[in-house]
């Protein structure tokens, strides 16, 4: 399957009645975005209002609490449309051409639950830890209707859809723009691959999806992934939004939809494809709460690795605690099939860095890449402007009592920063 991505560089965002991209500036009409979001019945039912803002790299701006980050894309050639099964029809995506508005993102923010977390600082020390400080962010803050408290499931769904719709609307603006740069990605059929690269090791990416429940879900072609068996997906399908995030907890190591669209493992494997390895496919598997599900899913991961005659696999994780068990089960079982693994995780080694980092361990997991210790404490200075609300900073993960100081600085663990210790290996942060 072959997909061409056409990158349209966005260096600035301006509100304007006319929607267009000109000289790397996105001009967008927030009212039009709003109208497009409200075309969805669930959004209409649960979201009272949206407000819009733009946050640019280097500004003294803090966005919190962040729900999701989404890169606008539009399918210009080939079957299907972006976010299949959710926004577009369920047709298989991943081939043809897709335009990407690179250098920007749609960020959804606003409270869903009272301990909602996720901070993006656009400057200062916090900005070093989140990849989203380097983007021009079109921020959508959602406000729930009265009485939403008893309907958190529905409201979370509505905000998720609203974000995807905003990104879809903006992506559409790039449909007829000539990309600044294009890049092709292709993986081959099993037999083809073996014939073309007879001497290269066959490698797949075992992609673990957060699937524990409300605020901890991931959707594949619109299907709640906790109700799925471990399966195979083409890496290019993920570039068209086949996997989207419904995960709002543990800001530092949740995979936003932006991460899924720009999966760094997919990128790194394509870079090595045909040179040092033969990139076969992605295997997606879940992280359920029920232990028998874990056993089944990890058995299937190992089984598929064997069936595909792999030599190696990279396993990535999402979230804290429970998924450590899936990570170790997957790794152990895949290694026992004779397939070599490297795993990507992050650590909760305590504020002093002295505790055991993972909730599970196995000697077969001997090649580990870490996204850093999420318990490490950081001081975030006061910002001139807050998009969203600081009401909940004191209750977010990693913040501790008094974490919002009177002078406006925040003392908290890295946990609170969106994407700080990403377990797909998106960042340079590590630990020893």
């Amino acid at each position, binding site marked *: 399957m072959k997909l061409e991505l056409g990158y349209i560089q966005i260096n600035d965002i301006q509100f304007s009645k006319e929607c267009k991209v000109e000289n790397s500036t996105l001009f967008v009409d927030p009212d039009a975005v709003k109208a497009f979001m409200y075309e969805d019945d669930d959004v209409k039912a649960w979201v009272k209002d949206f407000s819009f803002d733009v946050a640019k790299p280097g500004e003294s701006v803090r966005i919190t609490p962040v729900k999701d980050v989404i890169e606008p894309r539009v399918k210009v050639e080939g079957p299907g449309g972006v976010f299949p099964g959710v926004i577009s029809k369920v047709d298989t995506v991943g081939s043809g051409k897709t335009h990407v508005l690179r250098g920007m993102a749609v960020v959804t923010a606003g409270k869903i639950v009272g301990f909602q977390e996720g901070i993006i600082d656009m400057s200062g020390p916090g900005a*070093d830890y989140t990849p989203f400080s380097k983007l021009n962010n079109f921020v959508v803050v959602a406000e729930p209707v009265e009485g939403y408290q008893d309907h958190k499931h529905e409201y979370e769904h509505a905000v998720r859809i609203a974000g995807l719709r905003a990104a879809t609307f903006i992506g559409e603006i790039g449909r007829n723009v000539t990309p600044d740069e294009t890049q092709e990605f292709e993986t081959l059929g099993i037999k083809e691959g073996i014939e073309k690269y007879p001497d290269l*090791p066959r*490698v797949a990416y075992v992609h673990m999806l957060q699937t524990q429940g409300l605020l901890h879900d991931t959707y594949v072609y619109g299907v709640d992934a906790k109700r799925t068996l471990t399966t195979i997906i083409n890496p290019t399908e993920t570039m068209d939004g086949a996997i989207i995030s419904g995960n709002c907890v543990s800001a530092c190591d949740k995979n936003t939809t932006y991460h899924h669209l720009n*999966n*760094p*493992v997919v*990128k*790194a*494997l394509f*870079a*090595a494809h045909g040179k*040092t*390895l033969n990139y076969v496919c992605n295997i997606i598997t879940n992280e359920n709460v029920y232990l028998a599900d874990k056993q089944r899913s990890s058995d299937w991961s190992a089984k598929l690795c064997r069936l595909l005659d792999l*030599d*190696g*696999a*990279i396993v*990535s994780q999402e979230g804290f605690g429970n998924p450590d068990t899936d990570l170790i089960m997957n790794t152990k079982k895949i290694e026992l099939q004779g397939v*070599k*693994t*490297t*795993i*990507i*995780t992050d*650590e909760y*080694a*305590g504020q*002093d*860095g*002295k*505790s*055991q*980092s*993972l909730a599970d*361990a*196995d*000697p077969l*997991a*001997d*090649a*580990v*890449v*870490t*996204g*850093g*210790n999420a318990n*490490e404490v950081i001081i975030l200075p006061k910002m001139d402007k807050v998009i969203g609300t600081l009401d909940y900073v004191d209750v977010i993960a990693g913040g501790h009592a008094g974490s919002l100081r009177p002078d406006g600085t925040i003392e908290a663990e*890295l946990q609170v920063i969106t994407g700080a210790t*990403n377990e*797909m*290996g*998106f*960042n*340079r*942060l*590590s*630990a*020893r």
Partner: protein
Amino acid sequence: MSYKVVHYINQFFANIGGEEMAHVAPELRDGFVGPGMAFNQAWKGEAEIVKTIVCGDSYFAEHEADAKAQVLEWVKAEKPDFFIAGPAFNAGRYGYACATICATVQEELGIPVLTGMYEENPGADLKNKVLMVATANSAAGMRKAAPAMAKLALKMMKGEKIGASCEEGYMPNGIRKNFFEKKVGAERAVDMLVAKLNGKPFTTEYPMPSFDRVAPNPAVKDLSKATIALCTSGGIVPKGNPDHIESSSASHYGEYCIAGVEKLTSEGYETAHGGYDPVYANADPNRVLPVDVLREMEKEGKIGKLHDYFYTTVGNGTAVANAKAFAAEYAQKLLQAGVHAVIMTST
């Protein structure tokens, strides 16, 4: 004004002689000796070696207590800002001496310390206690080792933030620290996998907690002459828990004298453990720590002696790293007290 440093080296690096001179007793000299010159040069006047202590490796090994006391006395008198030892490279006894004396100075005098040696040097067993720079396995590595040690030492003297082990060159000491790599994690993962697939060396960024096994020690030959100590992770403490061993998440261990105690009574002892129903242990603490039976057997001559102290921690609540550290610490006390065997009870 420059920082004052005391340097510890062995007879070989002081040019006294090799193995045949390893018996020499500690000696205090003014200024730098041998490898100290390289440190002074690297520090460019910001820090300076004011005294050098030279000690034979065999002397240290055979008269450890005396050697420690002598070194402590000299260091204390000098009141330096920093204490540095070695580098010892692959010399086993020298490495042991450097690590041990650093640990002692750090603990007793509260002075920051640093040493350096080859990672497989037996002295490196103390790497979680004493910061040590990893060096080559022979003195030919001095040209690289000295500047690396000097740089880290100066940072420590200035009280600067110490980065992750791989940035600063010290051996991983069990304390995880964040830093920024040159490549993103996914690229590192692909590089690591390709190395692993090609049978090339790679280094995991997070070594899994040790699954090491310790081989069993030889059996006790004669019980009737043996001193047996009792230890427990069941949290048995004197009534009222005088040391406040927490019921969970214990941050310290208890050491209690039971000399002359015939049996543990519910008036005298209780459990601080939060992880199980305490009713049975509180009603009769011997159910967790069998002092009554062992005292009886001591009287009957079945065992030589029940050790005067027992050691207690709170099992599941204790962080793994802490539990290990506690046990390692009291194991040394038991060893020094001449205990022959231990009965450890767990709930």
